[in-house]
């Protein structure tokens, strides 16, 4: 089916050098509005640098990143980044944490309240509303961080292996939840993971990065119906294919 959604994010010949060490080599691709894109690649192939560039945390050596046609700028555009390490603010309770991004953007009080309530109800975090991060389990804390990112209704939501530490049952639950949030809020998501099964389970499209210096090795479109079954034979075929492309072990 021809994807008629407009381009939200455009990356043109993005290159990054640390001194003379080339980390990202002339990467170009487009992301549609509301698309769920997964990026996989061998460990240490520069995935994190790739994300830091997309989130404007560091300047590219050359090439540019456009959101809705203009050069990306955290102050003007609405970017959200879910880091791999725990990133909730210990001194804020769950509600204040979710509201953090909106406070920075100085959104109107009415909108802010309404959006935070929506996320809390969507993710079923009512009972944790007033508890502090150190009172939460690892999974609840990570869900709150993801809630904070979605609450900003971002133009681009970047997620760096958010479920790395979770056991498989919790991981399935969280993956279903992120798909539900993505569908409900229509956010454009870039999801980085080393777990290929997770990528095939979540993504509409997978970008496979080569080893360092990272280039885009291949794009794989996934048009399986949702919710996808990990043991389904078409699913396993795609998973095998992507694994062979990476061949890191």
């Amino acid at each position, binding site marked *: 089916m021809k994807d008629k959604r407009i381009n939200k994010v455009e990356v043109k010949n993005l290159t990054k050098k640390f001194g003379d060490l080339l980390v990202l080599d002339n990467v170009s691709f487009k992301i549609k509005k509301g698309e769920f894109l997964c990026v996989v690649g061998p460990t240490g192939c520069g995935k994190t640098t790739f994300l830091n560039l997309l*989130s*404007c*945390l560091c300047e590219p050596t050359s090439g540019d990143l456009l959101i809705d046609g203009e050069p990306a*700028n*955290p*102050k*003007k*555009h*609405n*970017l*959200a*980044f879910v*880091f791999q*390490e*725990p*990133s909730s*603010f*210990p*001194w*804020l309770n769950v509600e204040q944490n979710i509201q*953090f*991004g909106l*406070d*920075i*953007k100085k959104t109107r009080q009415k909108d802010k309240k309404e959006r935070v309530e929506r996320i809390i109800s969507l993710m079923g975090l009512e009972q944790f509303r007033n508890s*502090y*991060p*150190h*009172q939460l389990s690892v999974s609840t804390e990570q869900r709150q961080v993801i809630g904070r990112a979605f609450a*900003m209704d971002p133009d681009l939501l*970047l997620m760096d292996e958010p479920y790395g530490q979770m056991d498989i049952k919790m991981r399935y639950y969280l993956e279903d939840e992120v798909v539900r949030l993505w569908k409900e809020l229509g956010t454009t998501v870039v999801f980085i993971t080393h777990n290929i099964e997770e990528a095939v389970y979540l993504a509409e499209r997978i970008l496979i990065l080569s080893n360092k210096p990272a280039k885009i090795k291949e794009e794989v479109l996934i048009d399986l119906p949702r919710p996808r079954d990990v043991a389904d034979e078409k699913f396993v075929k795609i998973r095998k294919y992507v694994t062979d492309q990476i061949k890191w072990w």
Partner: protein
Amino acid sequence: MNKNKTENTLLKRDKWKYGVIIPVLTVVIFLIIWELMVRVGVIPQRYLPKPSELGNVFIDKLSNPRPEDSTLPSNILSSLQVSLSGFLVAVVLGIPLGWFIGWYKGINRFVRPIFEIIRPIPPIAWIPLTILLLGIGFRAKVFIIFFSAFVPCVINSYTGIKLTNITLINVAKTCGASYFQILTKVGIPSSLPMVFAGIRIALGASWASLVAAEMLAADSGLGFMIMMGRQFTRPDLIVLGMVVIGLIGALFAFILSKLEKKMVRWRSIK
């Protein structure tokens, strides 16, 4: 299931035994030994008063201004007044300065050289110069205490800001927060535990340098009182002064730790 009840009550009895009974016992024994040593004459009377004497010296001193013509309450009041004013000024100036030095490179490079020259000089070394400049009145003592409390405040709030978790800063950055916004929304809150540790050290330092200041250049206060105790060979007055100084110091520390628990309760008790 009653088995685990006994195991836990055992635990509770232990806590009671080690936490209360033995400490109280030790203090009583300590006082008895002290009393006997002085009574028997192992330690001569003019060196150390008997604990029992301390009781009536305390009551007597409450009203009797001799020998340094100021009663115990007025000494305590003047000491508190001096040390708290010096301490508060140091906290109000020191902590924000530490934050800014830690956060803005410009301020850091401008202020640090002067701060690094002054820092190693202990507060006591400033007393002679202060006396020459400000005499031995209230202002001189307050400056000495200010200085002794100022340094720990700056150091701890500076270290606190520097230890801010880089991931939290990046979260704020991607949300488009300005550099100052990140300072107020992320830097300062995450530095609070260190800042409180700094305040505790500053309070201890100001209380200690108060005694030094009052012994070298003062006409009232607890330090002055024990100094006079030496001049008039009144060991009971000296020990009374030391006990009162110790008690107030411990009281300050206790209040501060309770305040910290309340103010920074989000900190998990890791």
